C-alpha cells in the first residue's frame, strides 16, 4: 500500500511537471489504433499528423507548436471515456479530437462536457451529438445521420423504390440513421414503405438470420449503414442467396463506396450497390484537392489512399484556425471562434453552424460499377450531395 502511495505521489509530480511546458498546444486524439478499428484509426492518424506537421512547419500558431497526445479508443465507449478523462487530468491536453464510432463519440463528448474542454468530433455521425446531447463544448466536422439519411431517401426516390428493408447496426449510428432515413422518406417519397427493421450487433460477423429475413420479406430496395467489415461479411454471406441480384439497389450509408472497402473486396464486391464516401483517390474536385491527395499518398505509401485522412485533417485545421482567431487555447474563446467559422478544406469550404455546432460536410454518392483499368469497383458517376435537409 505504501508503495502505491509513493507511486501515486510520483505520478502527481509528473502531472505538475508537464503543466510547466504550457507553450505547446496539446491536442488529445482518440482513434482506435488496436483491435478491429485499427484499419480506420491508422489512416485517420495519417491525416491528423499531416495537418499538425504542416502547421508546425509554418511556425506553429502564434509561435506555439502543436503537440499530439494520442490514446487508443479501442472502438469501446468505456475505454475511450477513461482515456479521454486521463488525457485531460493527467496529460493536460487543450482539446479533444477524433472518436471512431458514434458510441465512442458520445462518450468522449460527455467527458468534454464534464471537464469543460472542447471536443471536435471528426468521424462520429450520430445526430444525438448535435441535438439531444448537444452542449457548448462539442463540435462536429463530419457529416451526420440526418444528412446521410436524407441523401439515401433522395436516392430511393430516384430509382423508384417502393418496399424497403432496412438493416442497421444496433448502436447509436444505426438507430439514428434509420430514424433519419424514415424522416427523410416522409419528405421525399411518402409512399415508400419500410417493411423490415433489422438490428445486428456492432461487430457482428454472422448475418445469416438477417439475410434470410430480407429474402423472405420481398423488398425491392435494401437500405443499410453496415460499415467496414460488417458490409464485407454481409455481402459475402448474402451472395449465395442471390440477395443483391434480386433487388433494384442496395443503398448504403457507412461509406462502403470508399476505396478501402471496394479495393479489399475486389470481385467479391456485390452488384447494385449505391453508397457514399468522403473521399475518392481517383476523383479530385479541385487542384488543391489533388495536392492534398498526393501528400496523403506519399505519407501512406500508396496512391490508392483511404478516405479517413481528410476527416482528421479537417478537424485539426478547424481547431488551429480557432486558436489563431481567439488568440489562445481557452475553451470559451475556442467555442466563440468555431461558431460560424468557415475554412477551406481539400474538398471545398466548410462552415460550422453556430446554432448546432454542425459543419456542412456533405458526401460523394454514386453507384459502384466495374470500369476499365480498375481491378475493383469504382464509383461512377460521382455526385456530391451537399449537407442539407431539403
Amino acid at each position, binding site marked *: 500500500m505504501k508503495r502505491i*502511495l509513493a507511486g501515486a505521489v510520483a*505520478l*502527481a509530480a509528473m*502531472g505538475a511537471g508537464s503543466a510547466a511546458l504550457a507553450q505547446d498546444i496539446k491536442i488529445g486524439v482518440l482513434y482506435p489504433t488496436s483491435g478491429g478499428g485499427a484499419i480506420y484509426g491508422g489512416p485517420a492518424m495519417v491525416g491528423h499528423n499531416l495537418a499538425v506537421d504542416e502547421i508546425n512547419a509554418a511556425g506553429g500558431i502564434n509561435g506555439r507548436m502543436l503537440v499530439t497526445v494520442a490514446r487508443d479508443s479501442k472502438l469501446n465507449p468505456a475505454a475511450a*471515456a477513461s482515456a479521454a478523462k486521463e488525457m485531460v*487530468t*493527467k496529460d493536460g491536453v487543450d482539446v479533444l479530437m477524433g472518436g471512431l464510432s*458514434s*458510441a465512442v463519440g*458520445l462518450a468522449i463528448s460527455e467527458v468534454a462536457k464534464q471537464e469543460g474542454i472542447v471536443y471536435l468530433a471528426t468521424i462520429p455521425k450520430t445526430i444525438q451529438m448535435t441535438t439531444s446531447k448537444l452542449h457548448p463544448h462539442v463540435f462536429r466536422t463530419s457529416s451526420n445521420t440526418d444528412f446521410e439519411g436524407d441523401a439515401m431517401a433522395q436516392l430511393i426516390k430516384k430509382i423508384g423504390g417502393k418496399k424497403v428493408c432496412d438493416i442497421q447496426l444496433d448502436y447509436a449510428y444505426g438507430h439514428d440513421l434509420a430514424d433519419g432515413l424514415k424522416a427523410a422518406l416522409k419528405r421525399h417519397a411518402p409512399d415508400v414503405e419500410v417493411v423490415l427493421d433489422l438490428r445486428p450487433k456492432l461487430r457482428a460477423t454472422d448475418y445469416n438470420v438477417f439475410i434470410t429475413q430480407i429474402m423472405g420479406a420481398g423488398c425491392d430496395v435494401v437500405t443499410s449503414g453496415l460499415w467496414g467489415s460488417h458490409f464485407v461479411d454481409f455481402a459475402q454471406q448474402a451472395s449465395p442467396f442471390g440477395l443483391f441480384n434480386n433487388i433494384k439497389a442496395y443503398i448504403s450509408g457507412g461509406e462502403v463506396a470508399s476505396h478501402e472497402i471496394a479495393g479489399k473486396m475486389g470481385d467479391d464486391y456485390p452488384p447494385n450497390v449505391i453508397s457514399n464516401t468522403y473521399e475518392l483517390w481517383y476523383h479530385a474536385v479541385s487542384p488543391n484537392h489533388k495536392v492534398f491527395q498526393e501528400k496523403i499518398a506519399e505519407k501512406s505509401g500508396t496512391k490508392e489512399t483511404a478516405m479517413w485522412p481528410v476527416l482528421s485533417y479537417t478537424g485539426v485545421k478547424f481547431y488551429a484556425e480557432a486558436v489563431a482567431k481567439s488568440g489562445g487555447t481557452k475553451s470559451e474563446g475556442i467555442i466563440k471562434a468555431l461558431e460560424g467559422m468557415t475554412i477551406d478544406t481539400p474538398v471545398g469550404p466548410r462552415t460550422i453552424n453556430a446554432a448546432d455546432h454542425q459543419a456542412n460536410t456533405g458526401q460523394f454518392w454514386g453507384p459502384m460499377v466495374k470500369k476499365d483499368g480498375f481491378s475493383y469497383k469504382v464509383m461512377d458517376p460521382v455526385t456530391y450531395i451537399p449537407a442539407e435537409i431539403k
Partner: protein
Amino acid sequence: MTSPLSKTGMAACLIILILCALTPLLQSDYLIDVVTEILIVALFALSLNIIIGYSGNVSFGHAAYFAIGGYVNAILLTTYGWPLLPSAVAGVLAATLTAAIVAYFCTRLTDIYFAMLTLAFSMLVWAIVFKWRSLTNGDDGFTPVHVPAMIDDRTAFFYFTMIVIVVSIAVLWVITHSAFGRSLVAVRENVGRAGFVGIHTRRMRWQAFVIAGFFAGVAGVLFGMYHRGMYVESAFWTQSAQVLIMTLLGGIYSFFGPLIGAAVLFMLERLTNEYTEYWPTVLGVILLAILLFQPDGLVGLGKRIKNKFGGGGSP
C-alpha cells in the same frame, strides 16, 4: 482471519484512511480520480471474496450485480429524476434481489456447476441490458448520469465515495468476524462436517451470495455516478473474471487481501495501458505466477517474507 484486528493492524488502517482522506490536498485531479476508482473496485473485490474466500464457491458472474446497481441508480436518477437516496437504495436493492434469486438456483449446485451457472446468469443480465435499448441505451452506454449537485464536484464526490466505502468495509468486517462469518468458513473448510454440526450449508451459502450482491450493488452505484455513465461491458463475463483475479491476487484467505489486489491491479492496468496494448498478457502472466507459485496471493507473500525474516507481530 477470524482474529480481531490487532493494535498494529488498527493503526495501519487508520494511517491509510488518513492518507486517503488527504489526497485532495495534493491538488491533482488525476490522483483524486485514481483513488476514487480504486476505492470503488476495492469494495467490488471485497464483496466477491465473501463468496469465494468465505463460502468457498467461485462466482464467475459477479459483475452482474455491480452492473444492476449501477444501471438502476443511473436510470432512476437521470430518466426519472429521483433524488439520490431513494435511487441509490433502489439500485442496491435491485442488485441484492437479483443476487437472492440467482443464488437460490446456484446454491443447489457446487463447484464447477456453480461457477458456470453464475456465469450464465450474468450473461443473461448482460443480454437484457444490451437489448433493452429504450431503458439502458444499449451498446452506446447510458450517458450522461445525472449526479446530484451536492456531490457533482470531484472533491465532494471523492469524500462521498470514501465515506460510503469505509462504512461498507466496516460492515463487511463485522459480518465476517461474527458467528455467521465463522460458520461460513466452517462451510468452506468442510462441507460435510459443517453439515454435521448443524449448519444449514445451503442457506449459509445463499446468505453469503446475497451479502456479496448487496455490496457489489453499492460499488456499482458509485461507479456509475463516478463515470457519469454505465456501459454494457460492466456486465460482461470478462469483467467478472477481472475482479476475480483482483481478489485472488490479493489473497482470498485474508479480509484485506482483495482490497490490496484491487489497488495493485488497477494501478498496473492504468500504467500498462499507457505503454502497450498488451495488458491482457501482463494480466495473464500475473495470474499464472499466482496460480503456480503463490496461491495465497500478495498477502500470503507478505506473511511469508515476514516470517522468514523473523518479524514478530500477529500472524
